[in-house]
């Protein structure tokens, strides 16, 4: 068995038992990264020396300790809007070029305490604002299944790194779909946990009432393993909650026997690529054959979700990004007085999409507009929450396509912001309602992956992941991009 073919759980068990060293795992990954990264460009920063030191420390640790580390020796990648002491953090922006955080995010500290080996920082749309990773100030990332297409975004670097076999698990952040949409486009599993489930201490804030960190992995099992490490109360994040953290890996041991799956027609209608709809519908029919019950449910406010999201998220972003003023960190433009220093620093440091959202957000919060825009959007948010609350009275989980379309060609939407925003049409509702949601590969159309999204009640990640395993079970077998052309290899 090749090291690269092992998932995170299998790798960790091999390192825990001593069957593999963390160093051997890292070197196999490093060789693969050197061959693959020049084409995929998933990373903004790689630090193999730091990773080698970590792997050596794991190998030299007493075996009774190593056996307790759930991610012993597992190579992970971190989205570059999550801060890491000793490595740069750019958020994909020129305004933070070369900046190094004086502290480490709680999620990264938790991964490392669990034995994971951080390889580097992954590419993203600037400040996580985008759906293709083309708005990175540094370079685009390509889809490992088709290098002419986008990997999705904003966590496109993390999803591409996992799909290309350059990391076993990666961290993403999800404000309106930024974990799930790239996971769908890259054929991997992406989980946005319940708002408050995972600490955001050290996540560069975009829209604070929506942002959540979560894992991207090759399988539901690996996502469950990572979530168990990431989840839990953090005194440094007042929005994290004391809800107990179940053993997610044990929870998914059994497939659900009689799960009730809500199917909202609003997510399967107009505007969806018929080929995508067919893959998702076929997966649902196969789940039904395995004992699931499909229940048609109404979600009447779905059509308003994108509009509400593109008022709330820019409003909160315009406030959160006020801190990038050239005084305390990052880039500073020379200017004769303080106001012009602010204005020029921000003009030269931010890219076009970030500027659009700052201006939109400033406008909707400005005097005379607040009630009509921001407050109205927050009221619509209540209606969207209500759609889910009613649904969860009769179903355990809601199933939708993750995206209305297949991964699109590079450059085809970057000049059309509204069209780019509509890529998020099926994912923003879970953020607006604070609910956990996961994208699972459901099949392929012409070699391009299609994701099925499951949305569950707050803090139902264990049940959600169990149903996600059923999706995985009924989905067609696939070979990963690095296994193409190899005899006998199978992804799972």
């Amino acid at each position, binding site marked *: 068995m090749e090291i690269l073919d092992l998932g995170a759980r299998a790798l960790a068990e091999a390192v825990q038992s001593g069957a593999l060293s963390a160093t051997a795992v890292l070197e196999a990954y490093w060789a693969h990264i050197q061959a693959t990264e020049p084409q995929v460009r998933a990373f903004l920063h790689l630090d193999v020396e730091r990773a080698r030191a970590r792997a050596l420390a794991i190998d030299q640790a007493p075996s009774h300790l190593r056996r307790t580390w759930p991610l012993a020796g597992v190579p992970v990648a971190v989205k570059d809007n999550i801060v890491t002491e000793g490595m740069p953090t750019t958020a994909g922006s020129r305004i933070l070029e070369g900046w190094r955080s004086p502290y480490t995010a709680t999620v990264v500290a938790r991964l490392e305490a669990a034995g994971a080996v951080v390889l580097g920082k992954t590419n993203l749309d600037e400040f996580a604002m985008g759906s293709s990773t083309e708005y990175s100030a540094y370079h685009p990332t390509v889809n490992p299944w088709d290098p002419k297409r986008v990997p999705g975004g904003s966590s496109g670097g993390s999803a591409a790194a996992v799909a290309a076999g350059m990391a076993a698990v990666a961290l993403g952040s999800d404000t309106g779909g930024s974990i799930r949409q790239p996971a769908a486009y890259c054929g991997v599993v992406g989980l946005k946990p319940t708002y408050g489930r995972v600490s955001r201490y050290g996540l560069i804030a975009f829209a604070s009432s929506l942002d959540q960190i979560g894992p991207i992995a090759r399988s539901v099992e690996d996502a469950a393993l990572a979530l168990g490490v990431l989840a839990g109360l953090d005194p440094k994040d007042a929005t994290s909650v004391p809800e107990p953290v179940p053993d997610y890996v044990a929870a998914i041991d059994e497939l659900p026997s009689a799960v009730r799956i809500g199917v909202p027609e609003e997510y399967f209608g107009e505007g969806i690529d018929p080929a995508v709809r067919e893959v998702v519908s076929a997966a649902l029919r196969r789940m039904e054959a395995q004992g699931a019950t499909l229940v048609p449910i109404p979600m009447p406010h779905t059509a308003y979700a994108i509009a509400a999201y593109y008022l709330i998220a820019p409003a909160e972003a315009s406030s959160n990004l006020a801190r990038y003023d050239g005084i305390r960190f990052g880039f500073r433009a020379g200017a004769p*007085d303080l106001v012009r220093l602010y204005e020029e620093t921000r003009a030269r440091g931010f890219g076009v999409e970030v500027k659009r959202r700052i201006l939109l957000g*400033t406008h909707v919060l400005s005097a005379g507009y607040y009630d009509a825009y921001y407050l109205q959007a*927050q009221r619509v948010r209540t209606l969207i929450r209500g759609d889910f609350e009613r649904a969860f009275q009769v179903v355990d989980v809601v199933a939708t396509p993750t995206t209305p379309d297949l991964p699109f060609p590079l450059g085809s939407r970057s000049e059309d912001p*509204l069209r780019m925003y509509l890529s998020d049409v099926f994912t923003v509702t879970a953020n607006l309602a604070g609910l956990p949601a996961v994208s699972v590969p459901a099949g392929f159309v012409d070699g391009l992956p299609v994701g099925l999204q499951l949305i569950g009640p707050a803090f139902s990640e264990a049940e959600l992941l169990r149903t996600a395993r059923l999706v995985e079970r009924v989905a067609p077998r696939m070979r990963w991009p690095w296994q193409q052309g190899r005899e006998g290899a199978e992804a799972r």
Partner: protein
Amino acid sequence: MGFSEADVYYVARLARLAVSREEVARLVGDLNRVLDYVAKLQSLPTETVAPTFHGVERASAMREDVPEPSLQPAAVVAEAPAARDGMFVVPRILEDDTGREGGEG
């Protein structure tokens, strides 16, 4: 919903963001398209609907008031664009009648 060039300059000023003439021409079009799209929300009756400000409503988190070590000032200013003696250096914001050169804050 008409959003004019003057509106863009006004909002850019509020956001402390310098914008060029070329950028403004493009931003007017982009922002108007988005504002036209989000106008669909106005048709929903919401008089009786309370706003949601957070996805998961929880009481404010409280903790014991115990001092803990925080980041060292030297580590914080080390990444600043300009710093001296553990402090951020900024352009002068008050007029100084001694005629000294500006540049310290």
